[in-house]
């Protein structure tokens, strides 16, 4: 990964830990509506509404176009790195779109799911 080339966006803090985007106030401010949308998916009716029509559901929240686009692309890395998504909230978006945490993680690492599992000690414990 090239931190210089693709580090945190302007206005987002860098705590100096590579590949890590600490959820502090800079991200909580940028991601407020995004995380609010994700939080709403704790309600089963909202999950159904989201699954039925993602665009209409997203329109109910004040997301930026770039945030919406990252949701469309299921770009979990961009959501947490650039768009202020907190992983625990974004995980609810993963659940609603059928992406398990390890699939999300493999993508954030830039690996296939299988490649990622190869790095683990006891893959059955998931």
């Amino acid at each position: 990964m090239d931190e210089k080339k693709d580090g945190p966006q302007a206005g987002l803090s860098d705590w100096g830990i590579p590949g890590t985007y600490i959820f502090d106030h800079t991200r909580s401010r940028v991601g407020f509506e995004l995380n609010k949308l994700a939080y709403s998916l704790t309600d089963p009716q909202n999950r159904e509404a989201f699954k039925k029509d993602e665009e209409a559901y997203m329109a109910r929240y004040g997301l930026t176009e770039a945030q919406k686009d990252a949701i469309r692309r299921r770009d979990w890395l961009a959501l947490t790195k650039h768009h202020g998504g907190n992983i625990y909230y974004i995980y609810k978006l993963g659940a609603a779109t059928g992406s398990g945490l390890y699939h999300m993680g493999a993508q954030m690492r830039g690996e296939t799911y299988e490649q990622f599992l190869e790095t683990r000690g006891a893959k059955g414990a998931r």
Partner: protein
Amino acid sequence: MAKIVAGIGSSHVPSFGPAYDGRKFEDPDWKPLFDGYVPVREWLRDTVRPDVAVVVYNDHGSDFSLDRVPTFAIGVRDIYEQADEGFGTRPLPPVKGDADLSWHIAKAVIYDEFDLTVCQEMKVDHGMMAPLPLLFSHDPDWAVRVVPIVVNVIQHPLPTARRCFRLGQAIGRAVASYPEDLKVVVVGTGGMSHQLHGERFGHLSETFDRRWLDLIARDPEELCRMTHEEIMAAAGAESVELIMWLVMRGALAGGAVERKHLNYYAPMTTGMGLISLAAA
């Protein structure tokens, strides 16, 4: 008088849930985890026999939103339903609370200059529910009543490690001033090493985890000196929730402690640690 008789440190990995509910106790990839809890569960049931568990955990965007983030919160209910974390809830009875003891602790601790948020509405997520059935029987109903203490370990600024330890000390004083004869165990949950976002997803550090498991019993003062940055750099961004174990340790700090059990296993993306401490 109520008395804190034991402390438990335990990870609260969400995957404990489906594995437990699916009874994967003998699955070779899960057995090292579940086997570690058996002696602790038996010790609690047969020797410690607590009436109440003060469970220190964090919500993971399940019941608390980012609208208002309390640094420390306490539940003051007689019953706690499970939060729906996006998949529905688990087949477990609702958690039994102890509103009287909760309010007593709230009052004592607030007068002791800890600025709690007091919750008459609250649901609990895997932060509590992942370890709870591994520690206490729940068939047909839970063997203990629970006082939930919720710590913000999600949105920085977080409380310092030292502040968590001091909150535990205040909880210890509060329990000791409760007139009812109750045996209380304090459970600190979370961690151990893990990171769940960014290119560093999956980072583990058995070295850090083993050191933490040693120091939490022997020298918590050294852990209190750690900054959030140090913990996150060594053990992954999400490992910082380990500071919640210091609330447990602080509650025991008045007397000597004896380490009774220890388990460690790190099969996937989180160091799964378990420790039990008996108050001397």
